């Protein structure tokens, strides 16, 4: 069982308390009704699904109930970093090669 650091509770808690909520940093348009088919497709259907570093949303559902963002390596399952919802994508990752 993974330990995941909740950036709101500021501690590592067992995976059972959390739920994955898909890829992060996909903003819903403030004018979604006027969005083109292509833009809506990108927003709703297309996901990166990378082998390696992924930015994704998690919810501390059985804890503080907050949504937050995490950087995880899909190969090792390792959580590299977690940060609060609304914060920008981290420019530099700890321990990353570049």
């Amino acid at each position: 069982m993974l330990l995941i650091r909740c950036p709101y509770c500021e501690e590592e808690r067992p995976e059972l308390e959390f739920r994955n909520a898909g890829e992060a940093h996909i903003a819903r348009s403030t004018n979604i009704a006027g969005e083109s088919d292509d833009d809506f497709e990108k927003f709703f259907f297309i996901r990166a699904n990378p082998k390696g570093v992924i930015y994704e949303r998690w919810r501390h559902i059985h804890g503080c109930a907050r949504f937050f963002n995490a950087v995880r390596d899909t190969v090792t399952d390792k959580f590299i970093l977690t940060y609060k919802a609304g914060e920008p994508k981290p420019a530099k990752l700890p321990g990353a090669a570049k």
Partner: protein
Amino acid sequence: MSAAFRISGAGRLSQAKTASFSFDDKSYTGIEGDTLASALLANGVHLVGRSFKYHRPRGVLSAGAEEPNALVQIVRDDARKTPNVRATVQELYDGLTAHSQNRWPSLAFDVGAVNDVASPLFSAGFYYKTFMWPKSAWKSLYEPKIRAAAGLGVSPDKPDPDHYASRYAHCEVLVLGGGAAGIAAALAAAETGVRVVIADEQAEFGGSLRFESGASIDGQTGYAWAQGAIAKLKAMDNVRVLSRTTAFGYYAQNFVGLVERVSDHLKTPGRELARERLWQVRANRVVIATGAIERHMVFANNDRPGVMLASAARTYLNHYGVAVGRNVGVYTANDSAYAAAIDLKKAGVNVAAIVDLRDNPSGPVIDEARSLGIEINFGRAVVSAGGKLRVSSMTVQPKNGGGGRTIPVDAILMSAGWTPSVHLFSQSRGKVAFNDETKRFVPGAYAQDCVSVGACNGTDGLAATVDEAYAAGAKAAKEAGGKVGKSGKPKVDAGESWSRGMLGAAPGAGPGTTIKAFVDFQNDVTAKDIRQAVHEGMRSIEHVKRFTTNGMATDQGKTSNMHGLAIAAEELGKPIPQVGLTTFRAPYTPVTFGSIVGHARGALFDPTRRTATHGWAASHGAVFEDVGHWKRAWYFPKAGEDMHKAVDRECVTVRKVGGLFDASTLGKIEVVGPDAAKFMELLYTNPWEKLETGRCRYGIMLREDGFIYDDGVVGRLAPDRFHVTTMTGGAPRVMNHMEDYLQTEFPHLNVWLTSITEQWAVIAVQGPKSREIIAPLVEGIDMSDEAMPHMSVREGKICGVPTRLFRMSFTGERGFEVNVPADYGEAVWEALWAEGQKHGATAYGTEAMHVLRAEKGYIIVGQDTDGTVTPNDAGLDWAVGKKKTDFVGIRGLTRSDLVAKGRKQLVGLKTKDPKIVLEEGAQIVADPKQPIPMKMIGHVTSSYWSENCGRSIALALVAGGRDRMGQTLYVPMPNGTIEVEVTGMVFVDEKGERLNG
């Protein structure tokens, strides 16, 4: 009376403490502290089982967890019949009853052994090749036959009466393995004061110190030192010592699963003791000290009972005081078997000969064996073992061929060398590296905060092992925050050391096709099978493994993997590392379901949710159905009524008089805050800003793709307060959906969401008399039609307790839903029931609720919709705010497929024969005469007998459904095609007058 092969003065068991046991209904005597294997061997019993595929007679190969052969069924009573227990692990208790497996009618005479003679038929890939065709025969013929003939042991056929405990533990240093390395590491870590857990799979700690007579530490024998060190560790507050505990799985972030065998070794465990305890340990640092496992030699008939690992024979002698034979042969490719020969010779056992595959080895153990007068043959091979139910001889030849001779023996002790136990390291996702010089895989790159020490790390020799382990234990503790301890490093006075050996088939494995030189004993895989797999095109070791099943039995190839790999590599002409090692997966040894499940059985398997009126419903004869975790009253049969009659009566009574229904399981969410209406506008298709306080609206929630996600009635209690209801099964995910948008997309909105499902009990009172039933109990609410019209909500009191009283209807009748704090739910229900009785009202269950709503064409999300249905498809376009510029799903609704013509739409169906009730899920076609496969244009979503209509009614999703009104369609069923007419969705009171009736 001492058993025939028990050597007086040898071993560590107290001969006075005897234990009687039976094996295949024959009684024997053993000693407390024996394993079943050592007790059988003490009685001269080597034949303990039949093999999986060929039914070959098998004996005891090892003295530990790696045992592939000696698998037995342990029977405690009618319900406790455990199959596939390794006799080498099962501790003896007085009265133990064991049976051999995989034989009929008896172990010595087994009909299935014909498979051995017919073995050319059963070669590698046999199942894949033979039972391919015809396809239909696989299910009806091949599989049942194979399953009946195969399989090891018999599963118990009664519920497991034992209970299983579960513990979580946290520590700074977890030490896996309690041999010399593990103990040294634990001592070093414990001295620093950090929390230490040390676990070992055996009943006694010591690992190979149990048989290494040459070990001496701190002036004591190795084994005595180990016991003293463990006693010292047990006395420390910061140390937990777990014996009989196997680490079976190494998971992410140093999370290790271990199973402790609590009472399998006890004569009468008693109810208070669990059978096993699952430990889930999170460690800051892990020290892996799992040792090494000896490999057998691969030669013809190397599976005859009496042929065993040299270290096993040594363990049986030095620990259990048992000689595995009176006249033993030794076949080896490394030094360690010499120590076994020496110990047995000194104990008075005749060693007929040592056969050493190496050409001219030298060293102290060889000198000592020679000085004891043991015949040693270098550069020679045992090419075959004689005998059938017990080995009787070994045939020895020069390894490059030439004349052989046959030496009578009653046991063969073999050693091809030692394989480091890298299972747990590999499970931790560490990468193993092949050491070409020593021909073994050892830990390479680490993926987690762990370290391997001793034999599992490829470290040879006791002194080097203890040095390395002690340093690693101290370092791990320090990294985990421990202080530097006083140095109590053990001093190794003397130790044994060996390495090298050989991998793969020995000369006795022969190139012939009839020779059975076993690589994997448990799955009956021979050297020939592996060669054949390569010849048939398997290149990857993973393919070879699956084709031959080498290493795929419950022992997971602990003794066979390296041999299999070496044979494949030789056949492929590639170096071993290029062929690769198969992946190690948890569990290291078999784990019972019970230990994983723990207490989560029966009533504790899954939570059960009961509403406030559950007791009342039960005492009034309700039949319950499961809806998610909820128990809901399904119907309330009166004496003599079946379900059909009860539901008919409930449905008719509700429309004629009235009925009470427990709707408490509906999800309820309170949406509160200055921006509550704005939030509702964004989450639902409907407009909310203009909904007056005290009024209700039927709301539809979509996903972003435009499909219906949930629906429910929403009441506005105040300008900043909405009482939202969701479908029973949808409450948690709707709450999650709302929170997601509130927290991440609309965080600027000042809104608070609270789940109130559990807080309010909901009693629906429906029917023409509903107001008369409720009114006498209500205070402070004017219930007249003018003051409280349909779709309104009022706050006041009922029976003196607070209520949120909704006027709403899921039946089409005048109706109310009485919300009261859940603690008062049963009392208010009783009061309403008493009032209802005066009018002849009924209690009704979920089945009548379903029928009544279907009569009105009210949909149930998830039954009449399936995640691809839009509001328009469901005939609910009126609920979508046309002037709105944003809500979740607004863009999805305009996708080209969602506005295309010919989409499936919800319609009503009436069968031409009113008595026929369609099956829900049945497919609909336009032309029943078209050839199969027919074009399906829709399916039935809801279907009931409606007593109120005097006929069956149904809802269905049909392509272009609303353009087909009046058309005849067809429902092809196995017993004939049913004609139906497409109709509107409302079957009762089309104008909706009864809402005020």
